[in-house]
């Protein structure tokens, strides 16, 4: 295997990075890394909900029913629709108002430990889809890069956007001997050489390594409630994974889910759906492999194909 170059940098409120060996459509490894970094930083600026001047904020604040957007934004909107369709509304990327009501108005922060949050959490129950099904009201014209939606329907980038970015960059790097793109924990792995790469799944309680997978190509994503937890104004523990049916932070008995899938976007959808579904139905979302971590710190590994 040729020399592998890598770079990590702060982006999306966390760390992102890429590992590349060999030449790809983006040039040699160093040039490819520069391309990855440049793209991710640009997309971060465009897709952050916390900057009122971002493209996403402009879209969400636009009162027109049909808005012309960038091709990337249109693609993201189509992924929001697909996520809702695939998960039957469980993974709902239109809950911006509910997120803000829950206190998630600025860049991610965690003022509450996971253990403390769980000790004050309400009784556990699986999440359900919102009866409003707002994601179904989105109409996306990819060819014209237009989004049509009813007034008040706003899009939240979150994990779906990160998974999408990882997939797009993965396609650019596909001809490299080996590559991995890390968009804040959402991974896309591959390369012409087909050499498997070790992926560590971190514990949400102590940052230890729970499990290791070897992935030749595909996507890996982890969703959980540990990194962004706080106490809301009413003194209730809150986090960013909402139950669409209630608009409140979901406490399902699963605190973290890692999913393997063909793409990073699919992995993100499966991970979110798994954690929102709870311990009994959650493993059904991890058919391609994954790990579920429960309230008591225990975890279950789901082997691919099981």
């Amino acid at each position, binding site marked *: 295997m040729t020399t*592998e170059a890598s770079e990590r940098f702060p982006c999306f*409120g966390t760390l992102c990075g890429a590992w590349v060996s060999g030449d790809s459509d983006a040039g040699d490894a160093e040039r490819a890394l520069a391309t990855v970094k440049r793209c991710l930083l640009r997309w971060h600026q465009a897709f952050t909900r916390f900057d009122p001047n971002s493209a996403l904020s402009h879209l969400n604040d636009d009162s027109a029913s049909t808005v012309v957007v960038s091709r990337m934004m249109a693609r993201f909107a189509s992924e929001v629709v697909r996520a809702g369709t695939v998960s039957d509304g469980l993974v709902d990327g239109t809950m911006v108002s509910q997120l803000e009501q829950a206190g998630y108005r600025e860049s991610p922060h965690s003022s509450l430990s996971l253990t403390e949050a769980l000790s004050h959490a309400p009784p556990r129950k699986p999440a359900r889809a919102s009866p409003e099904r707002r994601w179904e009201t989105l109409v996306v014209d990819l060819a014209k890069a237009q989004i049509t939606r009813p007034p008040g329907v706003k899009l939240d980038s979150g994990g779906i956007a990160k998974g999408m970015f990882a997939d797009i960059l993965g396609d650019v790097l596909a001809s490299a001997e080996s590559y991995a793109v890390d968009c804040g924990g959402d991974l896309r792995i591959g390369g012409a050489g087909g050499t498997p790469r070790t*992926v560590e799944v971190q514990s949400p309680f102590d940052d230890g*390594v729970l499990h290791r997978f070897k992935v030749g190509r595909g996507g890996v994503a982890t969703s959980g409630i540990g990194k962004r937890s706080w106490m809301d104004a009413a003194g209730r523990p809150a986090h960013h994974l909402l139950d669409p049916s209630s608009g409140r932070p979901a406490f399902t008995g699963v605190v973290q889910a890692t999913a393997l899938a063909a793409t990073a976007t699919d992995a993100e959808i499966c991970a979110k759906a798994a954690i929102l579904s709870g311990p009994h139905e959650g493993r059904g979302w991890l058919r391609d492999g994954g790990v579920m971590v429960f309230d008591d710190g225990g975890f279950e590994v789901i*082997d691919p194909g099981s």
Partner: protein
Amino acid sequence: MSTDPTPRRPPPSADSDELTSARALGSARVRAQRAMTRRIRRTIAAGTVCTFLAVWLLIFGVLVSGHDPALGRDARHTAVSSTGTSSSPTTSGSSTDSGSSIESTTESGTSTDSDESASETSTSDSSESASGVSASEPATVSTRQS
């Protein structure tokens, strides 16, 4: 007066014998040179063919033995081998509805060694880059909540 069409030959003399010898010698030398040329050509041709066969056999042998550089690693080890963990690894693949496939091998094991992992997740203002890292397999990456 009649003309004799037959060209006259010079009368025999001592010079003609010398000439004849010289011609014979010259012819012999030419023949010798031609023979040497033929030998040289045969030698070069034979050497070229032998060299080609030797190189071809060498490459064939390398590829057949599994050391295909195009695959980036020893081609005999197509599955992932387990390393350093207690339970037996399982190698499996699965197909999604889209037709693409995932290849993964699980290695069960719990580790509380968080030094490496913590450095991967810490948020800092500076970037980290590394190049020239030569390894027999790609670098380990981590998936985590973000």
